């Protein structure tokens, strides 16, 4: 903590509180430098004035530490003075309401920052995948994603600055520098190239994404480049949509209505969405556009016998339409007759403002005006049978068969799941025999063998053309002709697990049964090496070159190992995680979400990781390792591809991997990824140290009613931590009035087991635990005076921050159980006091070991320790809090273990047994 960093805020707060006290503290402080007797006053002040969460400082503040540890000497004194200086400067005393307001504001910023962080990482992952996953994209995609990314990173910096009370403004400089470079890259190709308002399907291919949207560009490619039959029709382009909106001057009004829209207020959201859609649907089409649409429609009308019916399909442009959560949100209108075509067109354009789409764009930072709704107008196929075709099984991207789902009538019913259908597996190899058929359809209406074979041929053909497994919609008409209605990459719509790019080709015939299967592909490829499990920083140091990194959670910290690892297997995590981004950047195969990886994979055993298929095999599997090189990408070499590649150079490389490095600072940020990493790391630190930076008014604290405890436990409500019926005037509170789940969990752990080992003590409940541990003759004398100290819980319903001084140990527990997993954490800091250094180290090491057993990520610096768990569900974290509660009380036990090494093993066993009993799990893990 740098002295004076809160200078401006201090001034404000001191104005609101009597300056007298500040003055007197300063006087005491000055004296303390020279005279030993003043130490007594420090104890007094720390106990009385301050909610001391300052870790080392609060320990040092006790006179005993200094007087009884002459060896600590100058270093302690300097540190002590520094800490004290910062304490007095940085800890304004807030009234209860002020404290609550400060907490709420910080918490809100923290959450907003995490959301922006997730958005940014997902956007980066999407842009990288666009380069490799064989999908077509245009400048609108590059521009839209870059803008959204910049917006999200700007938000992160903004919220971090607020969280940190105005610090980190220097991040603005690298942010501006990087975004300026990005703008230059993007500006090399002009934005809204004017094109035709309407394009016939005969003219469309994958290169025209910027005019017709991804869906129609792919369909045009199927028709004109692959040569398959698609319905006749035309596309009403992005240019047309822009003209329509501009001709009615709608954008200003739309933006006005969206401004200040509260996305959490569903009623407001739906009403605004309906209003905007109505605005668009009721606006007149420019006459020229209406005429052009009807003229093209006329050209389709070749059969005088029957009325021409068309399907109008949305084909969004300028945002990531491949996102699973977003697919299918836009509209399609079927069986539209001539007189309703203009109206149906307007309604589909209006569908851009469906409520989910508004939320999606607003949350992810896309600008509404950058998104255009292109609309395909296609002749309805008089379908007798329709369905969906996957060129590979979605859960096994190397399967040797295609999957067909078919139902009578239109394809929509299969997609909706509304019709009774049949499912077939058909061999990918000619003559494409049907391998398996599960039919829910009537006899005589199901797919024939030649039709199944034709579909399999089409599936293989389209997969090869697009370079990735495809998800294809199709119909067969009365004449038995097959029509392709849509083709898109499989992984995006069917299963997030199958992030397969189709780079590799292999049959599964030659392969042994996998050790593990079902993981998510975070970075494609195949790698082979010995298993090396990394649980702590210590393992990190011992990681051998050429090993497979096996971890529980893909923390960004492990990124430093990626230039040594041949593959990564993680039990948890998503492809959007930092570590996944880095793995892709390094080209290291990675599987995330691989359950039981740690339990199954033995250290130093040889395995082959097939990340593309999400599987792990024992030993060396040559057929997989010998897989062919990636297929050339459709987009590779195109100008847009080059621009995206250049843009990514300013976006994805991660230089800031180690928060402990001296280069982990704002001016070390060279890419947008660095900025997200820096902001995220610092935001967590700022949130963890909330309590450290704020003091409070005495009246804010309520004393917890605890029977026979020499220690005092005080509780401060930050938001909704007390039950509504609690009398705010009361000085005391009992547990029944505490709503905070994390506090209750800690407390439960504290009370769970009385201290049962030697020396003998009475089992008189909680008070005696504390009391006995205080009086234990084996312990340092510092304990006695300190036991009178107050310990503080800062709570809300889902948050708890507890500072404890038990003897000369200082411990801090903080937990947040939020609405989203990304907000959840438990953090534990522990610092041992005045024992000799060897004992301090042994003690910390033992606690680290115990916590490591319970999946905490432990960092140890000399005799201080930090343990964290993040992004886990609430029940899991509550268990960990109970464990911490137990350890807080039984640190005294640990001291005794340290005093007698011979007893260490049995006590450690006893502690582990207690903890496993607490968690209601077996002792053997």
């Amino acid at each position, binding site marked *: 903590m740098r002295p004076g960093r809160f200078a401006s805020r201090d001034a404000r707060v001191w104005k609101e509180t009597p300056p007298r006290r500040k003055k007197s503290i300063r006087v005491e402080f000055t004296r303390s430098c020279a005279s030993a007797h003043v130490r007594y006053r420090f104890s007094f002040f720390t106990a009385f004035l301050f909610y001391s969460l300052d870790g080392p400082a609060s320990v040092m503040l006790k006179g005993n530490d200094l007087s009884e540890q002459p060896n600590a000497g100058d270093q302690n004194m300097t540190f002590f003075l520094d800490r004290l200086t910062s304490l007095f400067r940085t800890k304004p005393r807030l009234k209860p309401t002020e404290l609550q307001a400060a907490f709420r504001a910080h918490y809100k910023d923290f959450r907003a920052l995490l959301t922006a962080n997730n958005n940014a990482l997902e956007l980066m992952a999407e842009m990288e995948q666009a380069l490799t996953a064989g999908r077509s994209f245009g400048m609108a995609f590059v521009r839209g994603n870059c803008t959204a990314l910049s917006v999200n990173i700007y938000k992160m910096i903004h919220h971090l600055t607020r969280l940190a009370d105005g610090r980190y403004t220097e991040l603005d400089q690298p942010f501006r520098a990087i975004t300026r470079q990005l703008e230059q890259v993007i500006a090399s190709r002009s934005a809204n190239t004017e094109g035709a308002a309407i394009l016939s399907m005969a003219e469309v291919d994958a290169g025209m994404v910027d005019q017709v949207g991804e869906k129609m560009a792919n369909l045009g490619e199927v028709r004109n480049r692959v040569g398959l039959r698609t319905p006749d029709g035309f596309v009403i382009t992005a240019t047309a949509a822009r003209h329509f909106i501009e001709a009615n001057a709608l954008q200003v009004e739309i933006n006005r209505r969206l401004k200040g829209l509260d996305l959490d207020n569903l009623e407001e959201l739906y009403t605004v969405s309906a209003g905007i*859609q109505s605005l668009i649907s009721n606006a007149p089409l420019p006459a020229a556009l209406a005429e052009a649409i009807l003229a093209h429609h006329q050209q389709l009308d070749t059969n005088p016998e029957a009325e021409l019916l068309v399907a109008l399909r949305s084909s969004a442009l300028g945002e990531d339409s491949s996102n699973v959560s977003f697919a299918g949100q836009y509209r399609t209108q079927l069986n539209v007759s001539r007189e309703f075509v203009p109206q149906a067109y307007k309604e589909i354009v209006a569908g851009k403002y469906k409520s989910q789409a508004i939320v999606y764009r607003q949350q992810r930072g896309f600008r509404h005006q950058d998104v255009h709704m292109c609309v395909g107008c296609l002749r309805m196929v008089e379908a007798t049978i329709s369905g969906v075709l996957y060129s590979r099984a979605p859960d096994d991207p190397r399967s040797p068969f295609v999957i067909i789902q078919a139902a009578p009538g239109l394809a929509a019913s299969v997609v909706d799941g509304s019709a009774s259908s049949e499912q077939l597996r058909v061999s990918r190899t000619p003559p494409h025999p049907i391998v398996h058929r599960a039919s829910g359809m009537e006899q005589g209406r199901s797919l024939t063998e030649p039709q199944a074979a034709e579909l399999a041929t089409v599936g293989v053909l389209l997969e090869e053309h697009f370079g990735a497994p495809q998800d294809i919609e199709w119909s067969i008409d009365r004449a038995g002709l097959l029509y392709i209605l849509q083709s898109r990459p499989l992984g995006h719509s069917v299963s997030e697990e199958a992030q397969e790019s189709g780079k590799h080709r292999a049959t599964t015939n030659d392969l042994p049964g996998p050790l593990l299967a079902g993981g998510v592909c975070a970075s494609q490829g195949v790698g082979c090496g010995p298993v090396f499990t990394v649980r702590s920083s210590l393992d990190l140091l011992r990681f051998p070159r050429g090993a497979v990194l096996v971890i529980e959670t893909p923390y960004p910290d492990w990124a430093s190992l990626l230039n040594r690892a041949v593959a990564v297997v993680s039990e948890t995590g998503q492809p959007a995680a930092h570590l996944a981004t880095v793995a892709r950047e390094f080209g290291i195969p990675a599987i995330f979400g691989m359950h039981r990886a740690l339990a199954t994979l033995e250290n130093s055993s040889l395995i082959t990781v097939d990340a593309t298929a999400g599987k792990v095999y024992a030993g060396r599997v040559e057929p997989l390792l010998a897989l062919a090189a990636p297929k050339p990408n459709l987009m590779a070499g195109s100008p847009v591809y080059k621009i995206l590649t250049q843009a990514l150079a300013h976006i994805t490389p991660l230089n800031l991997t180690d928060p402990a490095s001296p280069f982990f600072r704002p001016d070390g940020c060279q890419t947008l990824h660095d900025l997200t990493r820096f902001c995220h790391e610092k935001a967590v630190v700022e949130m963890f140290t909330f309590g450290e930076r704020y003091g409070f008014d005495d009246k804010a604290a309520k004393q917890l009613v605890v029977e026979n405890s020499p220690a005092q436990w005080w509780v401060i409500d930050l938001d909704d931590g007390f039950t509504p019926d609690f009398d705010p005037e009361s000085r005391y509170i009992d547990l029944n009035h505490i709503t905070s789940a994390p506090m209750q969990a800690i407390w439960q752990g504290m009370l769970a087991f009385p201290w049962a080992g030697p020396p003998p003590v009475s089992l008189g409940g909680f008070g005696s635990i504390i009391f006995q541990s205080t009086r234990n003759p084996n312990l340092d004398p510092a304990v006695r005076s300190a036991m009178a100290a107050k310990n503080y819980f800062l709570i809300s319903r889902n948050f708890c921050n507890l500072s404890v001084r038990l003897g000369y140990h200082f411990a801090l527990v903080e937990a947040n159980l939020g609405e989203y997993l990304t907000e959840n954490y438990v953090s534990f800091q522990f610092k041992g006091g005045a024992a000799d250094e060897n004992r301090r180290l042994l003690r910390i090491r033992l606690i680290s070991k115990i916590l490591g057993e319970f999946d905490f990520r432990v960092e140890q610096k000399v005799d201080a320790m930090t343990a964290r768990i993040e992004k886990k569900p609430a029940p899991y974290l509550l268990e960990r809090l109970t464990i911490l509660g137990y350890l807080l009380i039984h640190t005294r036990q640990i001291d005794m273990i340290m005093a007698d090494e011979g007893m260490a093993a049995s006590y450690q066993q006893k502690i582990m047994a207690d903890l496993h009993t607490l968690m209601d799990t077996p002792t053997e893990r």
Partner: protein
Amino acid sequence: MSEFPILVVDDEEEFVSTLVQRLRKRGFAGEGVLSGSAAIARVAASDFAVILLDMRLPDMDGGQVLREIKKIRPGSRVVILTGHASASEGEEGIKNGAFDYLLKPVEFETLLEKLEAARERVP
């Protein structure tokens, strides 16, 4: 195809005329009115199978129109179709006998499905 008369009550003329035309195209006997009082008068004169009712009308509150309709024909099926999303208004409507509550803009195909389902249930 059995006669299945539908009354569309909404003050947006364009919306009413398009919806009525589309319904007729799909074999429903559609008819539209632009105000609450006109709706009540039509219901008094003729028995509609389904009444699609907007909640924001120029002359009356939609809830009031609903209550009047249910008074005249307690068995009529009134579907609230509104652009002003309000949970309390929806609950109130259902309490007063509304058959369903839909938010605008409803997909025409979705609306058709609901009407088809209702038609199938007609004795």
